[in-house]
């Protein structure tokens, strides 16, 4: 395909400037996003064991509910039955959560002792995995929720422009260079090839991420505009009228007794075969009537949320009342909408896709890192061309920031995870935040202080050691024999990933497209 050379040149310049502005934010977003793909296993891994009897089976749930309600009447307001308890949700009855939750919050966990007496423990959840998720959502900054969302939207818009411009730059040489990674003679050329190839082969992934992120950032504002443009007075009138009708209809069911959780699970299984329920979340906030939301997943379908979908169930009859967000029970239009979310979260196709998303995310992070490094190298080449022997200050600053921010994020995430099992129960978010940003700033400081090659090595080795300490701190809290399989998998992966970082640190020419003598004599290049 042919594109006019002035257009390609213009887009190449736009690409490099937009890239330099948003590249480091995107690095953190992608790196933290890859880690967030395993938010649940990490949450379980970081949770210290609790002194509770084994979880109560579903058949004995009515007894547990009755005992809990008579001892703690306030538990009726808001309680959840966990069908598959894990280390982070160690009992089958959880209650006393705050009404509106942002992230994991403290809750009461109830179980029955061997003699049938009620045992209740209040537990603060680990915030480490959630902190990394927030870091992902706020592109590596710590801001109030709304400001962070809008800032992320601006970065996502720039990211979209970088994608469009980058694609237009690569297209003209597409056929010639498609599989070419020119190894050897010119390291910068090789990095450029890797950068373009990563971008091109994961382009669909990046397009999805850019568009969904812009939507996630601005959807409230767009809905406001939409309402202003489309809602008409008589429509509002009709809507409020039908709402009132529904309320009076609901009122007649107040005195009925809800079904047992086991019956609910069986009735839902009949209505939605293949749906694997995970929790039954009851709430009593709408007056005296109980509402039930059943969360779960269906391996054959993608789920709207990162962790699964949900359905509204009538707790008195077990009938499905709303299946808008239930995998496999959506209308065609709803499942198309769900697919946009599914493609962002990678919540389809099981573990294979999950790992694929991790690789695509890490590949994306590396692409941004390589892009910044290429910018530094081509700037440096231009400066050498004018006879300078050392870098200008701006090149030096950008180089140090690239290394410091990227590897600072890697080290910071590893540091947060490495202390996660050891943290005190309360005030975790502040500690975790403080720790991450202290490590992050420390790494930027090191990147400015040391020569760039040494800085890369020191920071990679530092990250590797922090990653290797993850299993150690987990073993301090949870003895080896009582560890669950998913926690051991996290430990194993931490050791492997630490080894990968360490190998990269030890290898010469780590992490930079170095300028060798020879590359000066090769043909003119532009980046």
């Amino acid at each position: 395909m042919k594109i006019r050379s002035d257009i390609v040149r213009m887009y190449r310049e736009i690409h490099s400037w937009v890239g330099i502005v948003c590249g480091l934010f995107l690095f953190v977003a992608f790196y933290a996003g890859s880690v967030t793909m395993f938010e649940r296993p990490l949450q379980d891994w970081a949770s210290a064991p609790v002194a509770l009897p084994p979880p109560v089976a579903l058949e004995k749930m009515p007894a547990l509910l009755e005992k809990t309600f008579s001892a703690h009447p306030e538990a009726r307001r808001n309680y959840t039955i966990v069908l598959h308890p894990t280390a982070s949700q160690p009992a089958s009855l959880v209650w006393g959560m705050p009404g509106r939750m942002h992230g994991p919050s403290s809750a009461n966990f109830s179980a029955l002792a061997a003699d049938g007496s009620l045992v209740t423990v209040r537990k603060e959840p680990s915030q480490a995995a959630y902190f990394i998720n927030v870091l992902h959502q706020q592109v590596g900054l710590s801001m109030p929720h709304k400001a962070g969302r809008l800032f992320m939207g601006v970065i996502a818009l720039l990211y979209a422009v970088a994608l469009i411009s980058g694609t237009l730059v690569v297209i003209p040489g597409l056929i010639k260079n498609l599989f070419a990674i020119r190894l050897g003679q010119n390291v910068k050329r090789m990095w450029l090839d890797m950068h373009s190839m990563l971008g091109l082969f994961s382009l669909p992934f990046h397009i999805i991420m850019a568009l969904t992120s812009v939507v996630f950032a601005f959807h409230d504002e767009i809905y406001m505009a939409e309402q202003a443009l489309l809602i008409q007075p008589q429509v509002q009138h009709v809507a409020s009228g039908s709402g009132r009708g529904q309320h009076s209809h609901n009122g007649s069911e107040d005195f009925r007794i809800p079904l047992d959780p086991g019956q609910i699970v069986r009735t839902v299984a009949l209505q939605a075969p293949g749906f694997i329920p995970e929790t039954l979340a009851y709430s009593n906030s709408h007056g005296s009537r109980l509402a039930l939301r059943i969360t779960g997943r269906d391996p054959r379908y993608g789920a709207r949320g990162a962790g699964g979908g949900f359905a509204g169930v009538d707790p008195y009859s077990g009938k499905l009342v709303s299946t808008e967000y239930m995998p496999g029970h959506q209308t065609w239009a709803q499942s198309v909408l769900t697919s946009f979310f599914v493609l962002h979260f990678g919540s389809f196709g099981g573990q294979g896709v999950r790992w694929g998303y991790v690789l695509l995310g890490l590949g994306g992070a590396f692409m941004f890192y390589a892009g910044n490094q290429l910018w530094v190298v081509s700037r440096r080449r231009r400066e050498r061309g004018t006879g300078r022997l050392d870098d200008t200050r701006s090149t030096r600053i950008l180089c140090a920031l690239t290394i410091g921010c990227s590897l600072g994020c890697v080290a910071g995430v590893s540091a947060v995870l490495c202390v996660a099992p050891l943290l005190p129960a309360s005030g975790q978010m502040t500690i975790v935040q403080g720790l991450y940003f202290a490590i992050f700033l420390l790494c930027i400081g090191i990147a400015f202080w040391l020569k760039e090659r040494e800085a890369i090595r020191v920071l990679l080795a530092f990250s590797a050691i922090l990653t290797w300490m993850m299993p150690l701190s987990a073993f301090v809290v949870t003895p080896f024999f009582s560890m669950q399989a998913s926690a051991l998998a996290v430990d194993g992966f931490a050791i492997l990933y630490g080894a990968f970082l360490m190998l990269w640190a030890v290898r010469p020419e780590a992490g930079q497209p170095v300028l060798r003598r020879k590359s000066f004599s090769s043909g003119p290049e532009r980046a």
Partner: protein
Amino acid sequence: MTTVPAMLTSRNWFPKASAGLVLGLTLSCALMGVLGLVSHVDGQPRAVGSQFLMWLIVPVWTGILGTCFLFRSGWHAWGMLGLANAVLWAVYMGVRSMVS
């Protein structure tokens, strides 16, 4: 175009990009309004139709933002996108007065 096209550079990026950012957004809002009126979406945020319209804005907006650099100049970008805005908003007003 009949004459030799002008050479494009990234020098005058700001007027073009700001046109793409501002007028691209208003243009996609107008498009949302027209499509919403034509397809009788009532703008309730939970409704499926209004969710689709919300998703529609973003590809249109980012598409304009990414390609607005192809305009010959900043004036051209503001002029053309402004004209497209005027047309679509006029259509929106017209359809709205017919519907209500």
